[in-house]
């Protein structure tokens, strides 16, 4: 009995000691580890001529959206912290340099820094250079700003995605808007930079004009050198032409220099200008941009975006931080991050990072509402997004001293983008069959 009491005492003491030891051990153990951070490589022009209009707004868009993700303050359904609960660590890389340099930096991000995904690239040249490498390395990559349709038309892709629509819709919508607003148009000219972007933009615009108004004639076709800066001869050529409208996909310094030079000589009084990327310049040019200019923004971005809660949220956080409203590259970056977040969280399993294959599978064909409207990954076998787009007329409001875009017309995504499986240039060439504009 005594022994049994002793045993009980020993057993009680032992269990108390054991409990204390376990409790102490538990107290000494670190807290349950937080989910490992998700590393993202963000690539954009941080230096060079394309930094100011595109690269920096894109970078800024990434910075504030990632901050909102990490603090869980993005609106639903994007309100989960980071990506699937794991905080995002972003590494910003400059896109400036040759295509070879861009590819080297890409490889560094994927192989040396072991990023989980890369989001980036403004230049179509960079996108075309990086895409095959991304496929080779099986690295999840979201292209954010470049416009060339070739990425998904040349070959099926597995790991590369682009939420932002390609450039075809910019020029198809420009042609539709111009013809709707200028019923008596007989002749138009083009001023575009002499490289892939300018040439593709003009080809799509002329193709759309031919399909929609075959009797309207393309008059002067000018392709000055990229970043030429001096446009006196081009302005004279246009002043001596019979055109009533001018199509231009100029951007940045080229656009601003052209506007200053043409305005001094009154070209905008002679013809209506259609600027397919003009939205990115309105906050800089302000009252220097002629009233009546037809403005596009590579989608329904900035003042062309619909007044939705998520757009208001994005406009607010961007403007509060940078004291200037977001332009379309910032929107494109935000939309790309939102798309990646949805895909990542769709693929995620508790406690385990999804693989690039799993995220890619989840990304295919997703749809979501972003600041620039409804995104549908409809082209390129679910890898290329389409959205609606919009055009409007620029006006500098002299009372409020702020730029405005009025008379906005929205074009559904299926009206200005080719159907799935059809190449953009063929679609335009064959009269844009299947376009659903109503």
């Amino acid at each position, binding site marked *: 009995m005594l022994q049994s009491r002793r045993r009980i005492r020993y057993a009680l003491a032992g269990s108390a000691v054991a409990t204390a030891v376990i409790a102490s051990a538990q107290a000494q153990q670190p807290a349950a580890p937080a989910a490992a951070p998700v590393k993202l490589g963000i690539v954009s022009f941080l230096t060079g*001529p394309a930094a100011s209009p595109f690269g920096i707004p894109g970078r800024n868009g990434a910075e504030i959206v990632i901050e909102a993700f990490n603090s869980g303050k993005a609106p639903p359904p994007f309100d989960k912290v980071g990506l699937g609960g794991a905080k995002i660590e972003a590494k910003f890389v400059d896109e400036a340099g040759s295509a070879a340099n861009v590819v080297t930096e890409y490889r560094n991000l994927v192989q040396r820094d072991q990023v989980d995904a890369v989001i980036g690239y403004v230049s179509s040249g960079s996108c075309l250079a990086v895409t095959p490498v991304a496929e080779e390395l099986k690295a999840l990559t979201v292209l954010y700003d470049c416009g060339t349709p070739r990425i998904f038309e040349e070959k099926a892709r597995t790991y590369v995605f682009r939420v932002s629509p390609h450039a075809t819709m910019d020029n198809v919508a420009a042609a539709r808007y111009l013809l709707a607003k200028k019923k008596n148009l007989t002749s138009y000219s083009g001023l575009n930079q002499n490289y892939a972007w300018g040439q593709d933009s003009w080809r799509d615009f002329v193709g759309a004009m031919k399909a929609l108004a075959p009797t309207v004639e393309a008059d*002067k076709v000018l*392709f000055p050198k990229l970043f030429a800066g001096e446009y*006196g*001869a081009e302005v004279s050529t246009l002043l001596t032409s019979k055109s009533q409208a001018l199509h231009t996909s100029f951007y940045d*310094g080229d656009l601003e220099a052209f506007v200053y030079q043409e*305005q*001094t000589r009154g070209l905008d009084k002679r013809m209506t200008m259609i600027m397919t990327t003009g939205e990115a310049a309105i906050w*800089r040019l302000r009252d*220097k941009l002629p009233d009546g200019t037809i403005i596009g923004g590579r989608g329904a971005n900035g003042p062309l975006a619909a007044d939705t809660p998520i757009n208001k949220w994005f406009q607010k956080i961007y403007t509060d931080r940078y004291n200037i409203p977001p332009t379309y590259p910032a929107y494109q970056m935000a939309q790309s991050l939102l798309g990646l977040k949805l895909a990542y969280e769709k693929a995620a399993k508790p406690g385990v990072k999804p693989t690039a294959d799993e995220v890619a599978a989840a990304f295919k064909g997703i749809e979501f509402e972003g600041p620039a409207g409804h995104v549908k990954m409809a082209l390129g076998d679910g890898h290329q997004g389409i959205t609606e787009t919009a055009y409007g007329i620029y006006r500098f409001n002299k009372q409020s001293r702020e730029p405005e875009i009025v008379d906005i017309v929205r074009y559904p995504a299926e009206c200005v983008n080719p159907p799935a499986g059809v190449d953009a240039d063929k679609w335009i060439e064959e009269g844009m069959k299947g376009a659903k504009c109503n």
Partner: protein
Amino acid sequence: MLTSFAILTDGLVYAAYLFIVAIGLTLIFGVMKILNVAHGSFYAFGAYGAATAVGIYANADWPAALGFLFMLVLAMTIGLVMGIILERGLLRQVYGKDEVITVLVTYATFLILEDVIVLLWGPQSYAAYQPMVSAGNIEIGGLVLSNYDILLVAIAAALALLAYWSLKFTRYGWLLTTVIFDRETAAAFGVNVTLIYTVTFIIGAMLGALGGAVMAPKIAVTLGIGVEVIVLAFAVVAIGGMGSIEGALIGALIVGICRAAAVHLVPQLELFVIYGVMALVLVVRPYGLFVRAQPRKI
């Protein structure tokens, strides 16, 4: 008729721009035998300086003429300071070394100065359109011309006359000519070649900055503007002959008129024409239009 007149006026304006940019480059090469890639940086700093000056005078509500003068003075002061720092601090260390080393030094300087621009002015672009807009326009022969462009042609003509007068009728010009002709002999006769080098480099730097300043109102002052300019300036200088000021003038006129004609008549050739003309001239005269082959000294 209107097209011919437009080609002539556009060609003159473009030639003025090219000459203002190229004169400093060719002067430095003529005297110092330095192919100065950093000349593009002088242009860029001049343009940024001018944009800063325009920002100051626009806010201060000064008269346009005073503001324009302030713009030029500030830009050329920047050129002066840069010229002194680069020549005294850097180029002096490589005098007498192989020409390739000097080119590499100026190229490295150019790359460093591109980053200095980002540090000083940030990556955003700047506008300095006020002088051009306030100058207005004039209609001649049915073509509306910018008064600022006419002023640009006048500035280029004045520079050409000033360069001619300085070289032919001033003591410094005579000394410069002797150094251009034969540096060793000039030094043997007591010419202070080192001082001539310093003064020439500073004048070249100020001319580069002046080019940036007068172009700033026409362009968006943004990163990378120096790269475009240096390529064009090299083409003009190669056509006229390295180191020849009259060559730079004629080279600028040829390129300006040919480019304007291409834009008006065959726009597809606009890119090709500048370098096509350069290639054609170099095939016929490998040292450019105004420079003869020189016997090599042993």
